[in-house]
């Protein structure tokens, strides 16, 4: 392994995507393979942990072999093996972690366990190589909603998070009650894009209130509206809901940037693939004279390339993770700080 050419093979199995990627030097994606389990969870209207865990085992070989093939690499070429070790579903996390540890053992290379949220924050760097702290990141998906201030490499301060549902969870629940199927995010995004967003209005929750989020009340408001006005076009309701969510996410991200003085805002996570959110973040950052880093959609949703980037950085900061490391379903981001 040389400092110039460090090849990281990473796995991401924390929720419902089975992913493997090879990234060189923490900057160059040699391959990034994601096998989605969406169809397996669709009949249940949400991610079922046991179904996800079984699917990860079934899909693991395929993503590994494909990632190596697309990178034109063999396992012997790999310098570091990594996996997201938390937070997430414990039975799912241990698939990627067990694979990475076993490969590291057999090939006598370091293993690095990575925080899933830190990986989301690192994803942006693949397309914005000059991105350096300080910056604030909004990580928003079906499992997480938080704003963190990165003050130095690997050093993050959580400024706000959801007090109940994750934003992506609210998308799924609202999509279900509007009969839009699963997953809800893309369905609402698509439908809302076709109509003016202000035919139906919902109050953005906790808008004027600090940096924490709450989405369960908004979900209830949509349900009540839908019951009271069953004839209202579903697209109008979906657009109104999405607008409220986007408004609160962007407002708090900009508030966090103002409070910290950070010159750059970053987004990541599955909900960061939402068209309206992406446009609103760029617009708000422009207006405030800040830089917005909005990674391509494939880097926002769960993937292993982001895990590889985070592993590259973590290895330099902390050294390898011991092989008796486990999985951490509720790992707080603050545990990463020295």
């Amino acid at each position, binding site marked *: 392994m040389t400092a110039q050419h460090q090849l990281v093979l990473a796995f991401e199995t924390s929720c419902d995507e089975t992913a493997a990627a090879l990234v060189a030097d923490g900057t160059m994606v040699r391959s990034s393979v994601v096998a989605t389990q969406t169809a397996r969870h669709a*009949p*249940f209207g949400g991610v*079922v942990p*046991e*179904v996800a*865990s*079984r699917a*990860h*085992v*079934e899909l*693991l*070989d*395929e993503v*590994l*072999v494909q990632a190596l093939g697309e990178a034109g690499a063999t*396992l012997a070429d790999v310098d570091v093996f990594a996996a997201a070790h938390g937070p997430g579903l*414990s*039975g799912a996390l*241990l*698939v990627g*972690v*067990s*694979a*990475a*540890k*076993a*490969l*590291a*053992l*057999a*090939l006598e290379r370091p293993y690095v366990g990575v925080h899933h949220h830190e990986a989301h924050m690192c994803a942006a760097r693949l397309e914005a190589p000059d991105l350096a702290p300080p910056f604030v990141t909004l990580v928003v998906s079906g499992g997480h909603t938080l704003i963190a201030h990165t003050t130095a490499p690997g050093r993050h301060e959580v400024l706000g998070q959801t007090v109940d549902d994750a934003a992506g969870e609210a998308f799924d629940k609202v999509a279900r009650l509007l009969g839009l199927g699963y997953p809800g995010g893309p369905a609402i995004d698509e439908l809302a894009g076709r109509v003016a967003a202000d035919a139906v209005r919902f109050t953005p929750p906790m808008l004027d209130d600090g940096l924490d989020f709450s989405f369960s009340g908004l979900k209830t408001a949509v349900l009540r509206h839908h019951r009271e006005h069953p004839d209202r076009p579903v697209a109008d309701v979906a657009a109104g809901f999405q607008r409220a969510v986007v408004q609160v996410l962007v407002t708090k991200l900009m508030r966090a940037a103002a409070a910290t003085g950070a010159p750059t805002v970053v987004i990541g996570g599955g909900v960061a693939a939402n068209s309206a959110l992406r446009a609103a973040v760029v617009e708000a950052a422009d207006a405030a004279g800040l830089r917005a880093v909005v990674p391509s959609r494939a880097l926002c949703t769960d993937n292993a390339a982001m895990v590889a980037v985070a592993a590259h950085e973590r290895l330099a900061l902390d050294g390898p993770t011991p*092989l*008796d*490391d*486990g*999985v951490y379903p509720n790992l707080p981001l603050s545990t990463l700080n020295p």
Partner: protein
Amino acid sequence: MIVLAIDTATRRVGCALGTADGLLGEIALGHAGKATAPRHTEQLTPAIETLCAQTGVSLRDVGAIAVSIGPGMFTGLRVGVVTAKALAHALAVPVVAVPTLDLVAWPLRYARHACVVPLIDARRNEVYCAWYRPVPGGVQRDGDYQLLTPDDVAAELTARRELALVCGDGALRFAAAFEGDDLVELAGPDHAAPSLAALVDLACARAARGDVCAPADVVPMYLRRSDAELALEARS
């Protein structure tokens, strides 16, 4: 040929190195009981590392990975199966996938009983089980791997009216279900856990016959579907 054997189908974490001539060494952590929380994810890779160091075997000298594929504890099975897959990819060697119940029955192949019945605790008052007959040189499975209640197993044993040896952690846990049946004997705690020596024995024999598979073809034998799937099926 040296085989690396992995069994994490119960709360115990086990690995062994051996050849057709027997074990070179084994490590077994925790036990089939419930005194401590299982730590499969944390313990398996370090156990293999220690085993190699203490036996002086390099993983590069291993010719096949043998893995106990269940039925058993879902989490444990996944750690064992995924570790076996990854090692097989890394070392470019095949996998021998062995059902866990075979590993409980095999050490009792010299029993004078008409049948050997391993039971693995499946929780929720159920056991994974299968019927085996001791035959010259081994045991022969008679029927499928099943998920049953201890009472179902007891009723089946009574109906068969033959001398039976019941073993495995399920036999200890549900001993009461077999009380009063004079034709049923229970094996003791020595036969509670799947045998790592059996895994090496069976894997060497299978590997010699070419009965191996690619890592991608190894899947855990769950026998029980997820609660969500059962609930969905019940609704429709």
